[in-house]
């Protein structure tokens, strides 16, 4: 790989890390009632997919907006702490995959909860900007803060749907 390509890859990885951090920041701002949906649209593709085992699934921006409305109607506080990233830019610099570990304190129906899991995301490059086009969240722990986690790691107290 020539020097310029190596630098491009480092810039791409940095831009994707920034895009993911901005995405969860704005997601949390929406939940914490400090933002609008417009700011998240700037970071996603029109056909964005957001899916998780216990928070719901959305295909496309319209469904994603609906999911966010349901989410923030019950979740009044959220901070998604990201760590342990692994970003791989695909050949041609048109797409990329990114994994993160997430730890998230949240308030559901006025009760404090802890979620820990992993994001497995994909990104595409549009007009020189990296956008998220698929978020897949796998929850490992979903437990009331007060009682903590034990088997089963996803508490039966968690609702079937948001």
């Amino acid at each position, binding site marked *: 790989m020539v*020097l*310029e390509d190596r*630098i491009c890859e*480092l*810039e791409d990885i*940095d831009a994707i890390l*920034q895009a993911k*951090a*901005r995405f*969860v*920041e704005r997601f949390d701002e929406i939940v*914490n009632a400090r933002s609008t949906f417009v700011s998240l649209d700037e970071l996603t593709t029109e056909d964005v997919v957001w899916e998780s085992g216990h928070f719901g699934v959305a295909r496309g921006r319209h469904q994603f907006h609906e999911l966010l409305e349901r989410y923030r109607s019950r979740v009044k*506080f959220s*901070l*998604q*702490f*990201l*760590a342990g990233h692994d970003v791989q830019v695909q050949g041609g610099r048109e797409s990329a995959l990114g994994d993160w570990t997430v730890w998230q*304190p949240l308030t559901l129906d006025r009760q404090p909860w802890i979620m820990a899991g992993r994001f497995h995301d994909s990104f595409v490059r549009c007009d020189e900007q990296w956008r998220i086009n698929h978020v897949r969240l796998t929850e490992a722990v979903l437990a009331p803060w007060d*009682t*903590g986690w034990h088997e089963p790691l996803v508490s039966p107290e968690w609702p079937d749907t948001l």
Partner: protein
Amino acid sequence: MTTLEERVRRLEKRGALTRAMYAHAVRCDDGPYGLEVLDDWTADPFLDSGSATFSGRENLARFYESLPASFVIHYFTNLVVELDQSGASATVRCYGFEAATIRGCPEVGAFTDRFIAMDSAGRWTWHHWEQVVHLDGPLHRNDQGHAVPKGTPQEAQRRGNDSGA
């Protein structure tokens, strides 16, 4: 046209800023809040802690000295770094989490931070820092909502309750 040299320089600056943030967390933890942490700030710093504001190094020193934690460990994550065109300053946003011991009780805090960082001769320092406190309080509360001190019968009882004993 940005040269390869300039692009590498900006990547290096972003990397250095990230490392400086992590080093700042360690310096906050040492002591905790030993006054060496002032070395991470510019000559004329400003801090909005979320509950009060502090201007200048003397007031910042008084703020650090007033913090009651006997132990603390900080985690800074989710860094969003916006370097200015010259690379001499940056606007940074991040998340912060801390686990602390205060007056014998385990406590936790979660924050979002926004600050201006200045590059002075290759070293990043903080100039203007605004913090929003989202979560701050005891890890465990008793039935009256009060913090449960570590190593007390109440804590042992609580652990027993948690384990189903």
